[in-house]
């Protein structure tokens, strides 16, 4: 507790005028308690000045800052009644648009001739089947003809090969027969 006429902290932070400073200094010299208080304050100040200055981190912000204030969309999204109202409005609008843009349904035939339709379908099916069978028969005939031709060619080639081999063997046999006849002295 200081008995000084002026605040010692003001003295220390240099906010007093020169006359007031002299007045505080004279009082501190005469008053032991105020002198000790002033020494403690000076010590504290010296200790504070010895610490390095540091910039406060930029990411630090307070909840009260505007950055954390919710946007209009968040406020809207978090508001149940508003969202319900908006949904109902959208649904109404969709119903209205659908009502205006829906194509007008064609007038349904008054009477359907089922028998005629069935007859037409039946005729179409029969026609398609006939055409398909004709195509298949043609393909089959062609395939059989090709196969027969190929077989005939193979048979002919086999026959030629057999004939050649037979002739060759016959010639060799003739030579051997002649040679054996010569050995027998028949010539």
């Amino acid at each position, binding site marked *: 507790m200081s008995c000084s006429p002026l605040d010692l902290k003001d003295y220390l932070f240099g906010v007093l005028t020169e006359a007031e400073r002299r007045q505080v200094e004279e009082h501190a010299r005469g008053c032991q308690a105020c002198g000790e208080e002033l020494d403690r304050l000076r010590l504290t100040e010296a200790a504070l000045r010895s610490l390095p200055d540091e910039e406060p981190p930029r990411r630090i912000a307070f909840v009260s800052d505007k950055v954390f204030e919710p946007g209009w969309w968040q406020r809207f999204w978090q508001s149940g009644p508003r969202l319900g109202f908006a949904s109902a409005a959208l649904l109404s609008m969709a119903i209205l648009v659908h009502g205006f843009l829906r194509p007008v349904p064609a007038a349904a035939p008054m009477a359907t001739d089922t028998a005629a339709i069935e007859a037409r379908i039946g005729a179409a099916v029969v026609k398609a089947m006939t055409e398909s069978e004709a195509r298949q028969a043609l393909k089959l005939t062609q395939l059989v003809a090709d196969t027969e031709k190929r077989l005939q060619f193979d048979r002919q080639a086999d026959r030629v090969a057999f004939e050649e081999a037979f002739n060759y063997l016959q*010639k060799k046999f*003739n030579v051997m027969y002649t040679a054996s006849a010569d050995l027998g002295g028949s010539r």
Partner: protein
Amino acid sequence: MRHPVLTALALAAALCGSAAVEPRVSRATMAAMEKSFDHRIRSIDVSDPFDLLGSTRGVYLEGYGAVFTAEVNLAVGPAISPFRPALTKEQIAKLRQKKLARLPLLKRQMKDALGALAASLDTVPPSEQMVLGVSLDYFSWEERAGLPGQIVMQARRQALLDVTSGRIRDAAIREQEF
């Protein structure tokens, strides 16, 4: 009496006309020449002999010379059979190469044989021809490019005797490929 004499004369003339002329080259000599050429063909390559498919046959043509023919397969290769219905291109090409390589051997033997014929058939006049023809046998599936079907060599007997004795070169032998 004139008739029996005339008849006897006519009979004698007929007998003289129908009598066989003594051949210039005997059949035995020709047969020996045939066998000699057969043996020559078989001996070209004992380990892989040429296939003799037609024994040598010789005839002497009066006024022309002696003609000999034979039928030979240059090389025995793989044959088509029920177990091997087709040959690969490589096998066919390999057989052709083998035959091409053996063709000069056959030609050499033919020239030598002609010389031997000329020397042996000494009853043939020197102005007459010595002919040797060899038909070469092939299967239909074979590749025959560059391979002849028949080789015929011929020369006058005198020329062949000169070649054999070394007096002239064997250019006197006429060689034809068909």
